[in-house]
């Protein structure tokens, strides 16, 4: 299938353009911009509206609405005197379910929500009401996790792209969010509305200048600074730019247009239209990781996966995450991703192993020791990058022991190894020693083997093994 993000947009979360547009010129201007955006969505051929709303906060991972027809009457907690907001709209259930599966495969905690009366948040309701009043396009709404960081949010965006690809949907992505979100803390007359402070206004205009130039990733990389400058300490920080940039490939290759920018009880509200432009090559700064899956970083649910130190006390692991079970399989078991505290920490975005059907595919395994990163037999290079003597037998033995550890963490064992590829950085020097140790372990097992000479490995080691085993 050939799904794609056909357009993106930023819209405000407050109900004023929906409920009280006539009371203030700026609110009416925003309502008109919503209408313009609505027409552009129709023209884009979008088949699904994806909404990421900062007013839907979640704690247990991310939540996706898969109720086929949410309907209720919403009243805003603060602006209840502006009126009620009845809603009744269609949800793209297949898309939500596919996105949920993709989230789990990428290591995210995720669940679908299908309960009558579930409170759809105000940002989503305003967006759906003004952008899709005739229910022409089904919707998919995702929550904003209060604890999620950039990596988790970027991975959420990539899961969304997975779902777009798998379903073949043409998708318009809407971020319901404020720019500066400091409101006045006392009631004001509608005619007196203005941005809360000059500083907030200046930051808002800077953000919009970037977005107007299609520099979405640049805004995303400024998210933390923007949050500290013009956002109050709400639980959801300025994350939507990470999400929006994520679904657009984390680049600046967009055509942006600011349709409106107005105050909403002091907060900054804007309607922005963003179109992908494959012909652009906008400059950008890659100063943060481009993460592919989320292994977790909190370790707060249970201690089952913790290693024991020499005193028998639990010790924390940086890389295993809270989702790891005693068996070494991370949350989202369908993903089959395997991590082990007892194996050396991966040097990139990959698991120690992945279970597919009855087979276990191990990532390349070297001799580094879990926790310390020490290399038995010595490193191939010293700290200055100069070559030095090392013991290939000790490295090979450590390498095989690490393979054994990972296989056992996945519920398998060394004797179930089926096919082994070995990488040596110096075949002439090391083959004999490596082969001797190898034979101690594998003669009776009889796995097939291929040994290759390569120029280098990512860390100063001399040998690495890639293993396929029965689970």
């Amino acid at each position, binding site marked *: 299938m050939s799904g794609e993000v056909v357009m993106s947009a930023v819209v405000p979360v407050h109900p004023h353009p929906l409920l009280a547009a006539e009371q203030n010129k700026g609110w009416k201007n925003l309502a008109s911009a919503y209408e313009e955006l609505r027409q552009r969505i129709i023209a884009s051929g979008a088949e699904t509206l994806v909404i990421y709303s900062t007013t839907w906060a979640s704690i*247990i991972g991310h939540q996706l609405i898969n109720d086929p027809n949410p309907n209720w009457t919403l009243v805003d907690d*603060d602006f209840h005197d502006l009126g009620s907001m009845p809603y009744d709209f269609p949800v793209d259930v297949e898309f939500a379910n596919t996105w949920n599966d993709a989230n789990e495969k990428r290591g995210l905690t995720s669940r679908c929500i299908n*309960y009558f009366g579930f409170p759809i948040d105000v940002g989503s309701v305003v967006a759906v009401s003004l952008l899709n009043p005739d229910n022409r396009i089904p919707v998919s709404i995702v929550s904003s996790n209060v604890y999620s960081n950039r990596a988790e949010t970027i991975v959420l965006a990539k899961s969304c792209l997975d779902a777009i690809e798998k379903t073949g949907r043409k998708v318009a992505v809407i971020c319901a969010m404020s720019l500066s979100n400091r409101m006045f803390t006392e009631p004001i007359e509608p005619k007196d509305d203005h941005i809360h402070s000059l500083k907030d206004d200046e930051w808002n205009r800077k953000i919009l200048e970037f977005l107007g130039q299609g520099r979405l990733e640049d805004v995303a990389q400024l998210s933390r600074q923007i949050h500290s400058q013009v956002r109050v*300490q709400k639980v959801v920080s300025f994350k939507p730019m990470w999400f929006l940039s994520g679904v657009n490939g984390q680049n600046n290759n967009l055509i942006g247009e600011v349709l409106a920018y107005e105050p909403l009880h002091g907060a900054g509200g804007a309607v922005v239209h963003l179109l992908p432009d494959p012909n652009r090559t906008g400059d950008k700064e890659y100063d943060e990781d481009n993460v592919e899956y989320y292994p977790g970083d909190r370790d707060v649910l249970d201690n089952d996966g913790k290693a024991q130190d020499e005193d028998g006390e639990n010790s924390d692991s940086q890389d295993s995450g809270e989702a790891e079970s005693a068996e070494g399989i991370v949350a989202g078991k369908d993903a089959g991703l395997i991590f082990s505290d007892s194996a050396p920490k991966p040097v990139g975005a990959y698991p120690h192993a992945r279970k597919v059907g009855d087979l276990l595919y191990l990532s390349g395994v070297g001799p580094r020791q879990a926790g310390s990163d020490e290399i038995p037999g010595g490193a191939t290079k010293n700290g200055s990058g100069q070559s030095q003597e090392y013991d290939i037998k000790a490295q090979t033995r450590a390498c095989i022991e690490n393979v054994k550890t990972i296989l056992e963490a996945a519920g398998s064992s060394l004797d179930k190894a089926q096919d082994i590829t070995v990488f040596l950085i110096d075949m002439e020097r090391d083959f004999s020693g490596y082969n001797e140790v190898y034979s101690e372990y594998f003669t009776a097992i009889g796995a097939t083997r291929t040994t290759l000479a390569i120029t280098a490995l990512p860390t100063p080691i001399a040998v690495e093994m890639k293993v396929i085993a029965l689970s």
Partner: protein
Amino acid sequence: MGDGKIVAAALAPHPPHLVYAENPPQNEPVSECGWENLRWAYERMRANLDQLDYDVIVILSPHWQTYIGTHFLGLEKFKSLSVDPVFPNLFRYHYDIDVDVELARAIHDEAAAEGLAVKMMENPDFRVDYGTITSCHLTRPQWDKPIVCISSNRSRQYYSVEVMQEMTAQLGRATARAIEKSGKRAVVLASNSLSHRHFVTESDVPEDMSKEHISSHHLYLWDMKMIELLRSGRTKEAHDLMPEFTEQAMSETDGGGLTWLLAALDYPKYEAIVHGYGTIIGTGNAIIEWPCHAQEERE
């Protein structure tokens, strides 16, 4: 009119898990059990309150979050379905609530006279927050007392915890005065937990108690420090420590409930009754009663 009084007050946290575990007819999901230490603590508090004659429950919940001052439910009846936005699998509760609008407006007016920003909520479609419903259910499941429901003014997020302290303490004093003038006997509830760092995953069986523990030891230490101050009558110290506690323990006291309650009680120096402490999905929760009536009798 006059001679109204607060006959009892309580820190009455609102985790929907406790209602879920109890299986009341109003709640749709069904559980096997769970969080008994806290549920039995609530039972002990209920038994105490059942001995009292009171007219109204006054509650401040952190889950009606308002940014433009403090709001009050301003209609006599609210009847609907409450679905927890975070734990919809646990809490889908059919509520039928009577509101003491007269007292609500009296507190509103007292607070306004103090210069606080206040507003009555009079939209009949408004859905009452699940924190209010949970704490009220666990305190008085018969639902035979009207309530006054006060929103949580999130001034902490706009200014600082210290500003929140001042504003909600002022609201607490206004609440006490309004109750006194009303001639009514009130039970006052602060609906908040203590430390508030959640787990971000949920067990397949939510009531699997083998998974339940505090998120981290330092949060436990903070909870114990705060509880010790409250139970030993050192509530002014607790008030003074609140900003640091709120920030260090990521505490739900950021909503102002406990500050408001202590101010309404004029910082009691007598011992509070700690009915129980336990964790819920990693957060620290204590059920603590201030038996104001008993103190009055002793005096």
